[in-house]
C-alpha cells in the first residue's frame, strides 16, 4: 500500500510506547531508518490493521493523547492509511487527538449515578477544576453502579495507572484529585487488604451463600491464584469437556436450554452448533466483555472476582466450536478486570491450560485480550469484530450472520461473559440438572444488577422465575421513608415498570409478555425522589452520544429525540409527543442495529406506562429549571 504522510514526527516517548507493543521496526518499510539493504529489496510490509487499536492505546496510555506524529508512526508500523487511523482514533471516547493532561477524571453521569447525585459531583469539580473537557469529563456508565456516584481516574504514564472513586462526595473527589497520586499499581491481581478499591465481593451481597452457582467463588477464591481456583472446583468442567468431546458438549448446552445473557437471549447451543458446522476455517471465539449498558456491572464482578472461570469457559467454548483462537474484548473502563484477566490468561498459559497443547489433550487454544476504548456500540456483536480488526466500531449489516462470516470474515461465535460462565455448571452438573432450575423456557440462574434507590445494591443471583418483588425484597427495598416510583428493567435499551407490576416473573418470556425486557439484567430502582424527566433526558443523551453515526434513523433520530425531550421537559406539547413516536418508530423499523432499534424503548415506556409528560400527571414536571 502506497501511503502518504505529512511531516509530523513522533516524540521519543511516543515512539518508545509503540515499539514496546510492536517491537522495533524491522525495516524502513515499516517506519525504521532507511539502510542500503532496504533499497535493494522491495519488501512491502503487510498491513497489520488489527493491531491499530492496541497501538493507539499504547500511545494514549503513555502520553495521554494521540498526536499526529504518533498516529503517523503507528500507521507506518502497521501499514494503515493515516486518514483511516484518524477515523478510528476519533471514534473512541477514551482517546483524544488534541493535547490534554496526563490525568483525566471520568465522572459517571449516567442513569444510576445521576439518580445518586452525580450532578453534585460535577458542580464541585466545576467549581474547583473548571468546566469539563480537559482534566475531568462526563462519562457514560462506568459499571460501578453499586458504588454510585462514582468516578474513574485514568493516568497516562509508564506504567499507566488508574483510581476508582465511589461512592464519593464532591469535596472528597476534588480533594482526592488535587492530591492525585497513582493509586493502583499493575500488580493488583489479588485482593489486597487496605487497597483503595473495595474487593469484588463487596458488590455481591449474597457472597458466600452456598446456594450460589455463578457467583459461588466470588469472595471465596483469590482471583490471582490458579491453585486456589482449582482447589475450588476450577478446571473440572474443562476436564469433563475433554472426556465427552465437542459434539457432546454442544448437545449438553443445547439440552440445558441456555440462552445468551447479553440481552438478545439467543440459544447458545444453536449458535455453537452452527459455528462448529461451518466448513470454512479458522473459526474464532469472541467473548463480549464490552459491558456498557447503563446500570450493568455483572460481567465486571465475575471478571474481577473469578477471572479463571472465564478463561476456563472460553477454552471449553473454543474446543466445542473448533476455534483455536479466542478474543476477549473488555471495555476500557474496567482497568481492574483487565489486569486480572491479563494475569489469569498468562498464568493459565504458563501452566499448560492455554497454548499449543491444552491440558495435554492435543488441543491448541489461546486467548488474546483486547481492550475497548469507550464505545457502547462495540458491544454489538458485529461492531465488536470491526473494533478488533482495527476498523471503526460500526455494526455490520446482517445477513451474513457471525456464524458464517464474522471476525476476519470467518465463522465466529460471540458470547457474553455471563453466558460463557454458565457453561461450567452445565458441564459439571449435566444438562438435565441445569434445565431443572428456572422455568421451562428460561433455564438456570440469572445475575441481576440492582442499583439506584435500594438499600443493598449489587449483583444478585436468582433462579429464573423469581419475581421482581422477590428481588427487591432481597435487596432491602427502597430506603426508609421512601416509596417506589418505577423500576427500569434492561437498562437504557430496556423499559420502565410501575410499582403495581412487581409480580412480573423475571424470565425472558415473563418480561416479554409484560411488554418489557430482561436485557442484560439491569434493575434500576427509582423512588419518589427521582426526577423521571431528567432520567429520560439522560437516556436520550446517552443514545445520541453513543450512536456510531452510520445510519440516518439513528444518527439524526437520536438527536431529534433528545431535542423533543428537552422541549417537553420545559412545557407539555402533544405535537412533540407525536413527533417522538414517529421518530421512535422509524428508528425501530429502519436502524441497522439494536442500538437505534431500541433507542426509543425506555422513553416510550415512560410515556405509556408511567404517564410521564401526560397532562394528567403534574408530578412529572417537578423541575422546570431553564436549561
Amino acid at each position, binding site marked *: 500500500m502506497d*501511503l502518504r504522510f505529512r511531516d509530523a514526527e513522533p516524540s521519543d516517548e511516543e515512539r518508545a510506547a509503540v515499539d514496546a507493543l510492536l517491537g522495533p521496526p524491522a525495516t524502513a518499510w515499516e517506519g525504521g531508518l532507511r539502510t542500503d539493504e532496504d533499497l535493494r529489496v522491495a519488501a512491502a510490509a503487510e498491513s497489520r490493521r488489527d493491531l491499530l487499536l492496541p497501538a493507539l492505546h499504547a500511545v494514549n496510555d503513555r502520553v495521554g493523547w494521540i498526536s499526529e506524529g504518533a*498516529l503517523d508512526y503507528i500507521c507506518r508500523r502497521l501499514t494503515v*492509511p493515516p486518514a483511516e487511523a484518524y477515523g478510528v482514533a476519533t*471514534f473512541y471516547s477514551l482517546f483524544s487527538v488534541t493535547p490534554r493532561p496526563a490525568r483525566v477524571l471520568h465522572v459517571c453521569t449516567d442513569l444510576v449515578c445521576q439518580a445518586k447525585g452525580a450532578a453534585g459531583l460535577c458542580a464541585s469539580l466545576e467549581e474547583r477544576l473548571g468546566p469539563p473537557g480537559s482534566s475531568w469529563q462526563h462519562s457514560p456508565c462506568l459499571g460501578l453502579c453499586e458504588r454510585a456516584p462514582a468516578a474513574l481516574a485514568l493516568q497516562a504514564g509508564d506504567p499507566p495507572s488508574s483510581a476508582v472513586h465511589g461512592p464519593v462526595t464532591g469535596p472528597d473527589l476534588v480533594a482526592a484529585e488535587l492530591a492525585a497520586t497513582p493509586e493502583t499499581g499493575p500488580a493488583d491481581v489479588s485482593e489486597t487488604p487496605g487497597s483503595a478499591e473495595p474487593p469484588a465481593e463487596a458488590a455481591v451481597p449474597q457472597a458466600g451463600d452456598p446456594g450460589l452457582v455463578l457467583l459461588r467463588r466470588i469472595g471465596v477464591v483469590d482471583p490471582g491464584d490458579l491453585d486456589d481456583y482449582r482447589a475450588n472446583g476450577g478446571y473440572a468442567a474443562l476436564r469433563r469437556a475433554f472426556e465427552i468431546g465437542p459434539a457432546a458438549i454442544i448437545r449438553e448446552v443445547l439440552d440445558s436450554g441456555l440462552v445468551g445473557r447479553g440481552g438478545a437471549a439467543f440459544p447458545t447451543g444453536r449458535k455453537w452448533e452452527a459455528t462448529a458446522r461451518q466448513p470454512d476455517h479458522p473459526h474464532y471465539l469472541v467473548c463480549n466483555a464490552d459491558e456498557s449498558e447503563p446500570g450493568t456491572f455483572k460481567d465486571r464482578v465475575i471478571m474481577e472476582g473469578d477471572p479463571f472461570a472465564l478463561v476456563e469457559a472460553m477454552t471449553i467454548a473454543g474446543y466445542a466450536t473448533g476455534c483455536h483462537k479466542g478474543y476477549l474484548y473488555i471495555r476500557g473502563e474496567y482497568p481492574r478486570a483487565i489486569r486480572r484477566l491479563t494475569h489469569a490468561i498468562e498464568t493459565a498459559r504458563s501452566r499448560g491450560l492455554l497454548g499449543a497443547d491444552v491440558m495435554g489433550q492435543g488441543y491448541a487454544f489461546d486467548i488474546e485480550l483486547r481492550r475497548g476504548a469507550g464505545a457502547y456500540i462495540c458491544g454489538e456483536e458485529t461492531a465488536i469484530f470491526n473494533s478488533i480488526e482495527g476498523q471503526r466500531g460500526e455494526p455490520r449489516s446482517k445477513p451474513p450472520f457471525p456464524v458464517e462470516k464474522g471476525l476476519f470474515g470467518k465463522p465466529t461465535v460471540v458470547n457474553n461473559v455471563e453466558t460463557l460462565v454458565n457453561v461450567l455448571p452445565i458441564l459439571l452438573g449435566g444438562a438435565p440438572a441445569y434445565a431443572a432450575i428456572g422455568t421451562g423456557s428460561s433455564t438456570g440462574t440469572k445475575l441481576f444488577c440492582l442499583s439506584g434507590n435500594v438499600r443493598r445494591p449489587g449483583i444478585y443471583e436468582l433462579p429464573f422465575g423469581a419475581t421482581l418483588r422477590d428481588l427487591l425484597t432481597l435487596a432491602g427495598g427502597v430506603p426508609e421513608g421512601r416509596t417506589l416510583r418505577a423500576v427500569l428493567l434492561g437498562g437504557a435499551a430496556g423499559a420502565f415498570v410501575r410499582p403495581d407490576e412487581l409480580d412480573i416473573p423475571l424470565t425472558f418470556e415473563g418480561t416479554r409478555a409484560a411488554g418489557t425486557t430482561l436485557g442484560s439484567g439491569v434493575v434500576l430502582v427509582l423512588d419518589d425522589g427521582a426526577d423521571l424527566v431528567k432520567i429520560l433526558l439522560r437516556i436520550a443523551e446517552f443514545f445520541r452520544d453513543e450512536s456510531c453515526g452510520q445510519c440516518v434513523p439513528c444518527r439524526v433520530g437520536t438527536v431529534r429525540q433528545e431535542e423533543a425531550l428537552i422541549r417537553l421537559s420545559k412545557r407539555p406539547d402533544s405535537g412533540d409527543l407525536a413527533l417522538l413516536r414517529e421518530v421512535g418508530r422509524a428508528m425501530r423499523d429502519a436502524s441497522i442495529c439494536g442500538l437505534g432499534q431500541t433507542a426509543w424503548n425506555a422513553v416510550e415506556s415512560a410515556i405509556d406506562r408511567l404517564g410521564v409528560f401526560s397532562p394528567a400527571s403534574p408530578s412529572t414536571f417537578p423541575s422546570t429549571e431553564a436549561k
Partner: protein
Amino acid sequence: MTIPLRPPRRLVDITVDGEEVRVAEGTTILDACGDSGPCSGKKDIPTLCYGDTLTPKNACRVCMVEVEGSRTLVPACSRRVEQGMVISTDSERVRHSRKLVLELLGSSTDLSTTPRAEEWMERYGADPARFGPDAATVEQPPKVDNDLYVRDYGKCIMCYKCVDACGEQWQNTFAIAVAGRGFDSHISTEFDAPLTDSACVYCGNCVEVCPTGALSFKTEFDMRAAGTWDESRQTQTTTICAYCGVGCNVTLHVQDNEIVKVTSPHDNPVTHGNLCIKGRFGFQHVQNVPTGQKD
C-alpha cells in the same frame, strides 16, 4: 482465450407487492424491483447511498422495504432475495420510514442540490421543518482548498460513497475516511488536513459518486455561486480521453461552449465511472483559444 461461463443461477419465487415473480438467486431486492427486473410496473424505490459501481453500504436507509417475517424493515439495495420472500415496497410502514428518513436528512442537511430529493419529499409527505428552527444541522462553510473540486459538507448525508471510491473499492488512495462518531461523524483527512496536504490524487472519483452535490467541480461550484449554472443549457458528449492509451470514456458537460464538468459512463467497461486527474480535470487546454480568435 476462453471465458468460463458462470454456473447457472437458480431461480427463486418471490412475491413483490402481491405479484409473484421469479428472479435469479442472489439478486438484490432493488435489482429485482428495478427496470431490468421481472416486476410489472416500475417500483421506483428511492436510493441515496446506493451506487451502481459500489458495494452497498446501506447507511441512508431510504430504500427500506418490508419483508414478511422480518422484525425490522430491510434495505432493498443490499438484501438478497430468498425463496418465498414476500416483499412490500410501498406499505404504510415503508412509507412512514421513508418519510421520516427524508425528514431527518432534510432537517439536518442541505439537500438543495440532491437530485430527486424534492420529488421524494413530496411523494412521501415529508416536512423537514417540523423539527423546529433550532434543530441541529451539519451546516458549515464549504471547504475550498484547491482549484479542482470543492467539499461542501453542509450537504453531506454521510453515505460513505466517496470514502469507498477513494479507498479499497476503486482508487486505493485512502485520502479520506469517516471520522468522529454519531451526529458529529464527518468525512475527513487525517487531522482535518487540507486536501493539498493529504494523499488525494485529484482523480475526482469521489465527485463522480457523490449523491448530493456535497462534492462538486470548482467550475460548477463557482457557477452556482454566480447563478450561471444551468443544466438545461448543457450538452453531454462522450468521447475518448486523449491523454494515454488506456482508452477511458469521458463525458464532457458543456455549457455555452465551455467544458464545465467531466464524468465517465458508469457502464463503461474501462472506467466504471472512474478517471484520473488528467481525464477528469485536465480539460482546460481544449478551450485555450489564442486571444483574438475567440468568438
